[in-house]
């Protein structure tokens, strides 16, 4: 189709103008419309990907929310982020703060009535230092999932609840005076910490102090009806004419924050039953142990430790008689 005179433009009227080439597409169909279709697919996928993780939206009431920032503060459980704060507002009467949290879909089971939310802040106490990471990263919201019906509104605590992992045997000790015993103090059996002291409070009629203990599930079998509990905190000093000075300290932790120890009589001795006690059984808290209790050494089978390959089933082989 090229004309020999194609390059000469100076006298267009003198030459016959060449004809342009014609190129055909392979397809008759306008393929360019595939582009908006592809764009819609990509856009749809991007949007879907970002909302795929969305779980339920819950509202938590707090008294104050210093350190929380919308779209930045995370909700964490066992160190894993399971949600994010999306909005912070005051409620209608300006008395409390409402924090809206979007949970991940995988953590939707956390939004149940008995779950407890609190703000994790650095805590430095005598027995307990925690949450120091939040000094750098900013506050976060912790959660203790509970059961119950699904819920969307919660009342948040200002501090972590005492003993967040509330699984185990719960019993009550009654004493006339709390002394140096504090929440989070350890409970000892033969010197091993097997539980924790929860919140102490005044009993009904304000005549005694009720202290709740939580015994770890593995050691729940150690507590029987005849078990005796005593206050193991502080120092026990005895000065005797013949024995001299005798100082007893259960542990450094017990020295500072107090503690409770207990001993269980062997089966058949006295009025102790052979099985573990029911939840909420009330025991008396003694100030000092009697010598007799320290000699008790019943054989109680404990469930195997989760990590130990060969389980140690029994405890307390009979001591030589005191």
């Amino acid at each position, binding site marked *: 189709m090229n004309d020999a005179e194609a390059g000469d433009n100076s006298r*267009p009227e003198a030459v016959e*103008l060449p004809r342009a*080439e014609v190129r055909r597409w392979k397809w008759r169909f306008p393929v360019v419309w595939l582009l908006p279709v592809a764009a819609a697919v990509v856009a749809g996928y991007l949007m879907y990907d970002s909302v795929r993780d969305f779980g339920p939206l819950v509202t938590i009431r707090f008294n104050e929310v210093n350190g929380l920032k919308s779209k930045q503060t995370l909700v964490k459980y066992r160190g894993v982020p399971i949600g994010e704060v999306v909005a912070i507002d005051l409620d209608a009467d300006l008395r409390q703060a409402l924090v809206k949290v979007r949970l991940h879909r995988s953590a939707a089971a956390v939004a149940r009535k008995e779950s407890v939310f609190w703000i994790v802040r650095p805590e430095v106490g005598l027995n307990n230092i925690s949450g120091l*990471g939040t000094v*750098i990263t900013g506050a976060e919201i912790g959660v203790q999932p509970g059961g119950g019906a699904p819920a969307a509104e919660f009342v948040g605590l200002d501090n972590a609840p005492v003993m967040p992992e509330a699984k185990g045997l719960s019993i009550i000790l009654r004493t006339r005076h709390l002394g140096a015993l504090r929440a989070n103090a350890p409970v000892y059996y033969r010197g091993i910490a097997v539980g924790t002291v929860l919140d102490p409070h005044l009993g009904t009629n304000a005549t005694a102090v009720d202290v709740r203990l939580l015994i770890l599930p593995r050691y729940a079998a150690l507590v029987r009806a005849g078990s005796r509990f005593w206050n193991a905190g502080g120092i026990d000093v005895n000065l005797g004419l013949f024995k001299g000075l005798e100082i007893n300290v259960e542990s450094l932790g017990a020295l500072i924050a107090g503690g409770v120890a207990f001993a269980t009589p062997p089966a058949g001795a006295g009025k102790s039953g052979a099985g573990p006690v029911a939840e909420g059984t009330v025991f008396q808290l003694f100030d000092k142990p009697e010598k007799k209790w320290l000699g008790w050494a019943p054989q109680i089978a404990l469930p195997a430790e989760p990590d130990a390959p060969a389980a140690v089933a029994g405890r307390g082989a009979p001591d030589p008689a005191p």
Partner: protein
Amino acid sequence: MEIVAACRICGQLQRVGELPPGAASACCRCGAGLHAGASRGSLRATAALSLAALILYVPANILPILVMDMHGAHSESTIWDGCTRLFQDEQWLVAAIVFLASILIPLLKLIGLFYLVTTAGRRSTLRQLERARIFRLISAVGTWAMLDVFLMAILVALVKLDQLATIRPGPALPAFAAVVTLTILASARFDPALIWPARK
């Protein structure tokens, strides 16, 4: 109907005949594509590209464009968040630039392209001079359109040098880059000669 057209690249005058659908004409001397005569194809391409850009404009603005992890604190922000944040920090000029370059101008370009396509498709003879000017403006502005993406790339590279903080582009960045690219392609594909339809 035959017309005479000059090649954009080499200037060769040549006759262009009626084209069957799906065909395009090429310069007989240098082989460059001649727009004249391919009216339907050009409009269709421009419309399709503009539509694709408009569709992707939505995730580009809704999804986060910047994800920042600083000292363990995590934060995501969209283009609009960045704008309001700059505004609140009293950086009026930068906020205005981000708003214009990332939100307003791409939208105006797309609206302009749709307007040009529909009027050229209807072979309208109204306001032809203004439309030609609009087209030249769109093409000129197009050279600056990638500025935002470039800025984000530099920011990410700079901040990665600091051990304590990492900035990652969010999912909106590829969407935004696609919007800008498609807009540039759409305006390049538009044949301004269609603003001046030949008389039948």
